[in-house]
C-alpha cells in the first residue's frame, strides 16, 4: 500500500513536469492564454453534456418534452451527449495535467468524480432495468423506476457541475 502511494505521487509529479503541463500553467512563452482557452472549451462541452442529459432526465420525470417518446428522444440526444462528454473529458484531462498533484488531493475534485461514477452506475442500472421494457411506456408516463433514475441522474450531474466549479475556488 505504501509503495502504491509513493508511485501515485511520483506519477502525478511526473505528469506535472511534462512540457505540455508547463505550457498549460502558462510557464512557457506565448502560453499565458492556453489554460483559459482550454477551460472555455471544457465549459462549452460540459454545457452540451448537462443540457442534453437534463432533457432526457426531465422527460423521464414527465416534466418536459412529453411530445416525444423516450426512445426517440434518447436516440436524438445521446450521440451529442457522448460526443460532448468525450470533448469535455479531453479538455478536462489537459486542465488536470497542469496541476495534477493539487487536483488529485482536492476534496471537491474527488467528489466530482464520485458523482460522475455514481451517475454511470445509475445509467447502467436504468439501461439493464426499466429501459429494457421501454416499449410498454415509451410515449406515456414513465414507471417509478425510470423516474427515480431520472431524478438521480439530474441530482448527480448537478453535483458534478457544482463540485467542478468549486474546484476552481479551492485549488
Amino acid at each position, binding site marked *: 500500500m505504501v509503495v502504491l502511494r509513493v508511485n501515485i505521487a511520483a506519477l502525478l509529479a511526473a505528469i506535472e513536469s511534462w512540457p505540455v503541463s508547463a505550457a498549460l500553467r502558462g510557464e512557457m512563452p506565448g502560453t499565458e492564454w492556453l489554460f483559459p482557452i482550454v477551460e472555455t472549451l471544457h465549459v*462549452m462541452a460540459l454545457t452540451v453534456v448537462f443540457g442534453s442529459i437534463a432533457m432526457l432526465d426531465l422527460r423521464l420525470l414527465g416534466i418536459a418534452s412529453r411530445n416525444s417518446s423516450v426512445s426517440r428522444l434518447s436516440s436524438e440526444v445521446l450521440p451529442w451527449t457522448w460526443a460532448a462528454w468525450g470533448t469535455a473529458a479531453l479538455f478536462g484531462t489537459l486542465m488536470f495535467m497542469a496541476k495534477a498533484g493539487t487536483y488529485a488531493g482536492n476534496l471537491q475534485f474527488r467528489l466530482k468524480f464520485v458523482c460522475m461514477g455514481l451517475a454511470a452506475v445509475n445509467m447502467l442500472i436504468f439501461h439493464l432495468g426499466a429501459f429494457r421494457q421501454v416499449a410498454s411506456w415509451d410515449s406515456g408516463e414513465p414507471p417509478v423506476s425510470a423516474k427515480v433514475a431520472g431524478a438521480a441522474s439530474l441530482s448527480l450531474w448537478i453535483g458534478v457541475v457544482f463540485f467542478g466549479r468549486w474546484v476552481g475556488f479551492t485549488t
Partner: protein
Amino acid sequence: MFRPFADWLSTTALSKTMQDHAWVVPTSQSIHIIAVSIVFGSACMINLRLLGVGRSGRSVSQLSNTLVPWMWRGLAVLLFTGLIQTVTEPVRQFVTPMFWAKMLMIIVVATMTSLYARAVRRNAPQWDGASSRPSRAKAFAIVSTLLWLAIIVCGRFIGYTWSFYA
C-alpha cells in the same frame, strides 16, 4: 463612467453582505452554468434541427414550442444569478469589455430567438416543411449558435481579463 458606480455598488450593505459569505459567488456561478447548459443545450437542438443535422424525429415547430420556453426559464435564472455576481463583485464585471460585449450579444440573441419563436408559432406548417422553410432559418441557426458560443467565451473571460482593466 461605470467605475464610480461599480465602486459605490461594492460599498452597499447588500454587496458587502454577499462579499462576506465566500460561498455566494461559487454557488451562484454553479447555478449559472447549469442554466447556461439548459439554454445552450436547447439552442443547439433547435439550430441543429434547422440545419438538418442529426436524427431528430420531431418537427421544427414541435421542437421549438417545447424548448424555447425552457430557454426563457434558463435565461431568467441566468439574469438572476448574473445579477447576484454583479452586485457582489461589480468592479470585476464593469471594467472589462468582455462583460459589455456579452450583454450586447445577449440582447441580440434574445431578440432573434423571440422573433424566431413568434414566426414559427404563426406559421408552423411553413417552418415544418423542409422545402417551404424560410431561407433565413439556416442563417438564424448559424448566427445564434455562434452568438451563444461567443457569449460563453466572454463570460469565462470576464474572470481572466478584469484585472488588466481594474
